[in-house]
């Protein structure tokens, strides 16, 4: 039965924000627990388990919202109640759950016994949920800041490591700068349209007279600079390799998957809901961003010898593919994004999880050559790595292929043939750095492992479950994607501004 929530009453807003409120309360409880138990060396594991409980509860509420067809009674003023919010939230929550599972043992091994880690992770997820569900630019900015501040700290949570501190400082300084751009863009859009509500912006624009507004164009350009930074699009990508390199590996995976997906979810909501009818303002700029991000991300990744930096540059390339989905500016593009975001979360967090098992001390020293002959000793781990690499490449039979296919069809659906061709070329280039990983594992003689790496590959406990689940899901979604694709299509159903365009001003 469909549930209509009245968003004009405080009770209705509280119900609409139920997952976020649940997580906020839970994160505060975890923070207090962390304060009381921080002398206990095992506290972080216990608090990690509790964080998992909170994330699963939020996931259940989101699924319940979606299943019961919860929708707003009237215009959503601050928070959206549509399937795109639920679908995006489910992707972020899955990413966060996988990250927590990877971290449970990792923190102990790397001696980052900081129980606040999980509270910060929950705060980051709250920010993401607000970003994906914002019906207003101010709520979006609030979510972005909540997410970013928590992730800045998480990047530097390994306090004794110089590279970790460098990562956090670099991310913080550049991120604060980018937030400034974003806020200025929001201010100019407000100046042009007189509102920060996405639906009302769409109405103001369709009312005419604003298509050529310089204020609007500059505002959208500044907005794109801010988002370009958050999603790591070229030329705003300079921070990515160093930050992903210095951050603890599960957090690198979290940044590459969930933080990026949240940025894209917010970007797509703005572009489709508010600016969907005025594509002339932004489509050209996003087109170029997509092209150079795909080309430069993939080309620089070719030159990397370290696995962690290679994955960082590959995540830039994938931001380019997702920008292609944004460029289409249609609900089809949004569906392609949702599917790809889920798949990308699985394969990226899986790959970073394996990397965490292969190395020591931040894992930035693991060379691709160090994987030589891994298949002889550890066939299952090599198989999992091969699946992640093939899926990142977009090889048929894996979920990555289906994801790319739908991005391509969304691009072609709006006549962006050239962009589709460049996407395919970018994928061909990316084979040049994904396939050597597989070749090293299967076609080379085993090498003597260097003494600074772990003596044996250390994939145990929950991390093993994460990798196995990701592999199974990637293959399953590669051969039988229909059910999830239907959900992704349903997830972008209400994204276009509703029919208030037909009549009177709200």
């Amino acid at each position, binding site marked *: 039965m469909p549930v209509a929530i009245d968003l004009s009453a405080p009770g209705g807003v509280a119900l609409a924000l139920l997952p976020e409120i649940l997580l906020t309360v839970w994160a505060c409880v975890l*923070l207090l627990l962390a*304060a*009381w138990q921080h002398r206990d060396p095992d506290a972080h594991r216990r608090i990690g388990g509790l964080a998992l409980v909170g994330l699963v509860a939020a996931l259940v509420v989101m699924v319940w919202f979606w299943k019961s067809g919860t929708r707003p009674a009237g215009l959503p003023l601050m928070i959206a109640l549509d399937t795109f919010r639920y679908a995006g939230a489910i992707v972020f929550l899955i990413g966060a759950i996988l990250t927590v599972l990877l971290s449970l043992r990792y923190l102990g091994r790397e001696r980052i016994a900081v129980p606040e880690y999980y509270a910060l992770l929950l705060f980051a997820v709250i920010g993401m949920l607000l970003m994906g569900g914002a019906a207003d630019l101010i709520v979006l900015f609030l979510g972005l800041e909540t997410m970013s501040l928590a992730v800045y700290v998480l990047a530097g949570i390994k306090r004794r490591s110089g590279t970790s501190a460098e990562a956090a400082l670099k991310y913080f300084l550049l991120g604060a700068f980018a937030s400034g751009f974003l806020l200025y863009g929001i201010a100019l859009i407000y100046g042009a349209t007189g509102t920060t509500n996405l639906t009302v912006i769409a109405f103001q624009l369709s009312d005419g007279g604003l298509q050529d507004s310089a204020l609007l164009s500059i505002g959208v350009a500044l907005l794109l600079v801010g988002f370009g930074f958050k999603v790591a699009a070229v030329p705003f990508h300079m921070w990515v390799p160093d930050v992903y390199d210095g951050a603890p590996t599960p957090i690198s995976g979290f940044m590459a998957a969930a933080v990026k997906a949240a940025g894209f979810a917010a970007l797509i909501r703005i572009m489709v809901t508010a600016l969907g009818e005025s594509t002339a303002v932004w489509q050209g700029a996003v087109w170029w961003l997509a092209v150079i991000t795909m080309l430069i991300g993939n080309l620089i990744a070719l030159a990397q010898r370290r696995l962690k930096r290679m994955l960082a540059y590959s995540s830039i390339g994938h931001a380019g593919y997702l920008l292609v989905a944004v460029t289409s500016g249609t609900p089809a593009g949004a569906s392609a994004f949702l599917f790809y975001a889920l798949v990308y979360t699985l394969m990226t967090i899986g790959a970073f999880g394996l990397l965490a098992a292969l190395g020591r001390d931040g894992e930035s020293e693991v060379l691709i050559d160090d994987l030589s002959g891994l298949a002889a000793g550890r066939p299952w781990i090599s198989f999992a790595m091969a699946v992640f690499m093939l899926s990142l490449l977009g090889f048929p039979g894996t979920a990555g292929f289906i994801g790319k296919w739908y991005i391509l069809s969304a691009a072609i659906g709006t006549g962006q043939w050239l962009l589709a061709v460049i996407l395919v070329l970018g994928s061909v280039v990316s084979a040049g750095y994904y396939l050597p990983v597989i070749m090293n594992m299967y076609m080379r003689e085993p090498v003597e492992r260097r003494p600074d790496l772990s003596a044996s590959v250390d994939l145990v406990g929950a991390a093993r479950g994460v990798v196995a689940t990701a592999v199974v899901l990637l293959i399953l979604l590669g051969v039988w994607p229909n059910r999830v694709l239907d959900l992704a299509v349903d997830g972008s159903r209400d994204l276009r501004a509703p029919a208030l365009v037909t009549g009177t001003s709200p």
Partner: protein
Amino acid sequence: MREYIPLLMLMGFIVFNAIVMVALSQILSTRRRTAVKGAPYESGMPALGGTRARFSVKFYLVAMLFIVFDIEMVFMIPWAVEFRQLGLFGLVEMGIFILILGVGLVYLWKRGALEWD
């Protein structure tokens, strides 16, 4: 544009005047350097040591804590001004806000951020 010409002339005169004053004092003045003239302050205590002393990081921590509660005031004053119009709803909202800040304070307290040593 015609009405702006006097303004332009005024600006030109200011720039000209400034340059002439600096130039004249350069040309006409006599310079005699003494140790007292080179000191940072001509009155008060004599300077002790270099200016690049290192401060304990604890000062920054205190400053950060101060900013949190400073910002709290920034939010509370508009609420207090509109208190009657906002009514019970505003009171509950502000209660939640202070509760969340309180959680942060309790956390800091318990972790020892308020201890100086």
